[in-house]
């Protein structure tokens, strides 16, 4: 279980939080003007990388605030948390993330080859 550092309350157990899926998926500002395809990209499609992932969390059993986090999905390390209003952090800020994968996995079939910085 992760320890997540709520920007408002500090580090807490994961069981106090609810994951809200990928962050920075913008809701079209004028939904009537977008095509079916563009709208369904917003409603249904999310990236699912092995590696750096920007995602939303809500401190549902705490302050109930939504915030964003950057997590390395291959190590489950939370590299950064920031408020909803903050800019998406640039990868340069995460330079020390030191991407690794659970070792011992064979290269073929484990998806390791897709580990990369996006």
């Amino acid at each position, binding site marked *: *279980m*992760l*320890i997540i550092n709520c920007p408002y309350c500090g580090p807490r157990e994961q069981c106090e939080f*609810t994951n*809200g899926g990928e962050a920075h998926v913008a*809701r*079209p500002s*004028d*939904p*009537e003007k*977008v095509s*079916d395809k563009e*709208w*369904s990209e*917003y*409603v*249904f499609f999310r990236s699912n990388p092995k590696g750096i992932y920007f995602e*939303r969390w*809500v401190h*549902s059993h705490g302050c*109930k*605030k*939504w915030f964003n986090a950057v997590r390395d999905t291959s*190590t*489950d*390390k939370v590299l950064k948390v920031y408020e*909803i*209003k903050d800019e998406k952090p640039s990868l340069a800020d995460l330079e020390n993330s030191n991407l*690794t994968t*659970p*070792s*011992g996995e064979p290269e073929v079939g484990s998806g390791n080859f897709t580990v990369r910085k996006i």
Partner: protein
Amino acid sequence: MSAKDNKDSPYIAFHQSVKFTFDGVKYKGFKGDTIASALIRNNIKIIGRSFKYHRPRGIYTCGIEEPNALVQILSEYSEPNTRATVKQIYEGLKIESQNRWPSLENDLSSVNNLLSPLFSAGFYNKTFMKPRGFWKKVYEPLIRKAAGLGKPPKPFKTKSTQLHHHVDIVIVGGGLSGLLAAKSLAKTKLKVLLIEQDSYLGGILKNSNKISTIESKDRASWIKDVETEIEYSKNIKVLKNTLATTYNYINYLIAIEDLTTGMMPLEGHADQILHKIRADHIILANGHIERLISFRNNDLPGIMLAGSFEKYIQRYGVIPNISPVIFSNNSSSFSLIKILIDLNCKPQAYVDSRSGDKIESSLLDIIHKENIPLFTNAHVEGCDGKKQVEEISIRDSEGIITKLKSKMLCISGGFNPDVHLFTQSKGVLTWDDKYLTFKPSKSFQNTIVIGSAGGLFQYSKLANDIDSKLSFLNHEPIVNINFELNESDNYSIEKLWETKHEKKSRWSKSFIDLQNDVTTKDLRQGIREGFDRIEHLKRFTTNSMGTDQGKISSINALGIVSEILNKKVSEVGTTIYRPPYAPLSFASIAGRSTYNFYDPERKTSIHEWHKKNGAVFENVGQWKRPWYFQSYLEENLDQAVQREALQIRKYAGVLDGSTLGKIEIKGSDALEFMNLMYTNNFSKMKPMSARYALMLGEDGMIMDDGIISKINDNHFIATTTTGGAAKVLSHMEEFSQTEWPHLNVFMNSITEQFCTFNISGPKTRLIMEKVFKHIKFDNESFPFMTFNNFTYLDSTIRILRASFTGELGYEIYVRPSIALKLWEDLFRFGKDEGLIAYGTETMHLLRAEKGYIIVGQDTDGSVTPQDMDLEWMIGKSKKDFIGKRSLTRSDTIRSDRKQLVGIKPINQKNIIEEGQHIILSSNVKPPVKMLGHVTSSYMSPNLGHSFGMAVIKDGKNLIGSRAYVSSSSRDAYEVEIMKSVFIDDENKRLVS
């Protein structure tokens, strides 16, 4: 030859005898004994029967790695599969052997042994595939009786608790390395937790004779001094009787502490603690495990690992046998021979697979000096005996077999670093060619492995090992410690996984996994059948899949496989050791969260009244809601619902709707926010009026419904379904915080601040006028879908004219403290008018008669408002609301979507069942084309027949036509497809 006490052991209280029962017979042991050491003291050899073949099995080891000696503890909750080698005895302990029938001595199922072709490798995968139908009638009952381990425990309330730790360092293992590490951290500021599975610290110092003195002290005093030092340190906490079972991501460790070691669990006291530990760094000092060698009948009681044999002598003060035969492929037997000699015992023979010139001179010296028969370059070919070892066959390099009469054989096949926790942490292993084992190589997390857990088997290098690995913590360096050793510091081993053996009879077997009864022959067969990947082979043969996870044999299996495949062991690789390290009971994981504490129960303020008045309750989320009210004791659900439903349409009924979610929305942008959250347009709504409203997801599917009361543009109150309250509130929070943070709006749950009563039926106005004499309820003063605040008992109440049932109705919102009084007032004045209380089932029936859908019953997350014939609720003039754009997607505007309709049977005797299929004809021949399914159905006393709601492809266009409904008990029958409103389509009753 029998067992003998070694009264020198400081860990057993020989002055304190303890009586316990095994299979109904009373035995005596001493305080500090495990079940195993006590049984050994009593010369009990057979402890259980094996998993598949029901072969007699004894005590193989002296610790957590035990594959055989598993027992059922009768005196507590009948806990099965308890390791006799770990569980300590106490006065009155009752235990039973497992997996034997009818008795341990005479097990009839051992005939399985002769049917062994049936139980060979892959028997789960293939034997039971054919012939079809045999599984249920033949195989399953047979296997249930014959195979398996213990019986399930009795139901009980767990008393275990959980504790959280946040520390800098965890040291797993309080043996020699762990103690040295702790000692060197004692003067730092680091917060350290030291975890030891035994009741005493010391590890190898306590369990063996290998080290004679350390820092010029005898072993016991050194341990005592270090323990004192740790105690005074204040920064190190020691947990004994605690086993680290799981090493998760983020250096998160789970350990289980047994609080009742050596005693009967006390009433009202916790019996175990599950420790949840977060640490910056984890130091693994959890040592090594000895492994076996496979030979013919290497499972017979009387065979024991040599290191375990020595541990019984040192740690438990019992010599299992005063003249065992010792068989080894490595240098580790010296200390065992020495302690036996010191205690005036003598091995009957020493068998070493190595040639004479490779055996250490110190070992040869003591053997010659004591005149112990020596077999070099020799193997144990096999053992024979009916229920235990009676004869041992030794084959020398010429192939000549010598038979020795003996009841005890100690074996040592070498040592494995205990890498389970390390691999759980995702660390990488590497093969060590010198010691023939896998050892940790690269950590994935902040993991440091020291001592033999890291593959270091030389005491002289230990200080340097620890110093170099802990220096980054600014620990106090150990630099050097002087050891006086009883054996050579140069551990050496020769490769030997299995000895060559004769095929004597079907009963002859050479085991690789004792707990799961897997033989070396099974491994060969598996590979022959194509399962040559180690993970596949594991599943095909079930090798190392028992509760012991093959702790003493999994590396041997890899060795054997590598030889068959002619590959290096490092190429074969290991299977993944999965958590937990040793079985963890569900009770310890559940902790206090069981029974009453599993989930909160929520009750309304009227709950006690309901109970007194015959309510039968149902669970709706955490709420207890009256399901129906019994008017007499034997009245069943159907009878009560028919009675209640008739009564309400004729007179009046009241429902305790306090469980409905209530959310208050306030702020200068509340109107704009509500227009975005719901499909309806609230802009033109007058203050103090209400509206039935729909909430969608962004996918356009119905999420919830409820009544929105508008106090003014800055203040709304929304009701939600009982089960949807939390979801709706967090949905609102999410969008207000993430999508529209510029809107000035706040929301709060007020579900528990108000009780809600829904009263309806033709007599309702009459009753309300009697209860609230000062309020005018006529149509002009109080129109449909309006509300107002009134005074009742000096308190403000809110009354809304709305209806759940299709009849004239009101919803009353009242403070919980006076709610019961008001409820009773309703009955005081309403009784003569025929007012009754009714439950959720009747509510569902009445709603369905009127065509009101139930979100979650008639909808399933895949229906839009159009599908539910609720297009009239969509505020088309609104530019945007959640889900609006999805309602015009190509998929949602298809005409052949499933749409809501009503159905009634043509033959009114037929009763429609919920969930049945709507089909085109009564002729059911696969494949049957399905039009849709019944979402809800009821027997209506008001209509005089059964009816239902259904979702049907292109349903709106099929209204007026006929279809068929399948049945669980007979042929499909014909129904009429109609509009889903069955009563008062013109809404006359609502506004009456």
